[in-house]
């Protein structure tokens, strides 16, 4: 992890100086990292869109990375911002459910856990986290989520709204 972090930080600093070769390697590494990062928190057919949107943001905001600091916490903040934005824009489509539950990586290092999206959910009240998962991640309708969670339909909507607002305010939280 330390090697990966140091390598990415070095590549990002080189990219900021205009080194295209380093930038290509950096973007390739980030693409793989982002796929793993988002996989369990977005419907599979939105995964590539979200990865591409985040790579675009990385490109536009490359200057906001301070090369004196670690790279992954910066990338995680950019990724969380894009993810929350994506969830807000996401309209429910039928068949968005994740097929099967993707198990957590048992060897996920502690630092990765602190940067993860799962970490953000732990700060939400259970009722809000549950309906966001059901509607925005698994793709259930409001009515289906209401049945699954035992909350009224209006409460599901309120909890999604409040939960996403809270998530947006906690993007840099460990």
């Amino acid at each position, binding site marked *: 992890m330390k090697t990966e972090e140091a390598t990415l930080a070095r590549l990002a600093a080189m990219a900021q100086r205009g080194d295209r070769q380093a930038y290509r390697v950096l973007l390739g590494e980030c693409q793989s990292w982002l796929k793993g990062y988002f996989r369990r928190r977005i419907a599979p057919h939105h995964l590539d869109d979200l990865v591409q949107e985040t790579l675009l943001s990385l*490109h536009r905001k490359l200057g906001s990375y*301070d090369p004196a600091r670690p790279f992954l916490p910066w990338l995680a903040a950019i990724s969380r911002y894009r993810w929350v934005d994506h969830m807000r824009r996401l309209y429910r489509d039928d068949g968005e459910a994740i097929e099967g539950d993707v198990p957590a990586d048992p060897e996920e290092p502690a630092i990765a856990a*602190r940067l993860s999206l799962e970490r953000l959910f732990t700060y939400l009240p259970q009722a809000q986290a549950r309906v966001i998962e059901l509607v925005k991640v698994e793709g259930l309708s409001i009515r289906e989520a209401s049945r699954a969670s035992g909350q009224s339909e209006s409460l599901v909507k309120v909890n999604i709204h409040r939960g996403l607002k809270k998530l947006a305010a906690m993007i840099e939280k460990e």
Partner: protein
Amino acid sequence: MNAMRTDTENLISGLVDELQPVRPLRFRRGLGLAVAAMALAVVLVVTLGGIRPDLAAGRPDPMFLVASGLFLLLGLAAAVTVVVMGSPRVGNAHDGWRWAAAMAGLLPLAAMLLALGDFHAAWIASEPAHGAYCAAYSIGLGLLTGAVLVLWLRRGAPTSPGRAGLLTGVAAGCAGVFAFSFACPFDSIMHIGLWHALAVVVSALAGWLVVPRLVRW
């Protein structure tokens, strides 16, 4: 799936082709720019508006020192937070300015408590004829610092545009009040607690309403 992979690879190739050298945001530079904008506002006030007699005589009023010091500290704390927000990272905390806000908040709080006894006398003591000028000039002078911080945020990637806007407004308002204090001859707690604090509140509200639209990405 292969097609999507190709899309992402194409995107990466496009981004690589577009790459231009970019100057990274450095904390020291951001803070330096904000402080320079604050200093420029002071210079403008002193050269165009003149300096308070007690300052010119080298014997500043204690209330001037305390009040302008509190506004300066809050302005700096808010500016530091805004600069940090430009370079996001998981693990950043943005709470330090709250303590400075609590301390500076004692000024309007003290004015309110004193006004409870005799509202009319408190209103007269606040120098209402000059108060609106104080607030308006302070807000205007704060625009310098506000503009610098907005430009910084636009280059950066603030993940909480609303909070960044609010703090930009607080920093701008405090910078304006601090600068205008060098010319404002009124030292009563009623004047400072009402009109000077009002300038910060109005700036903060304006920042909260306007800045997020300018810095969202």
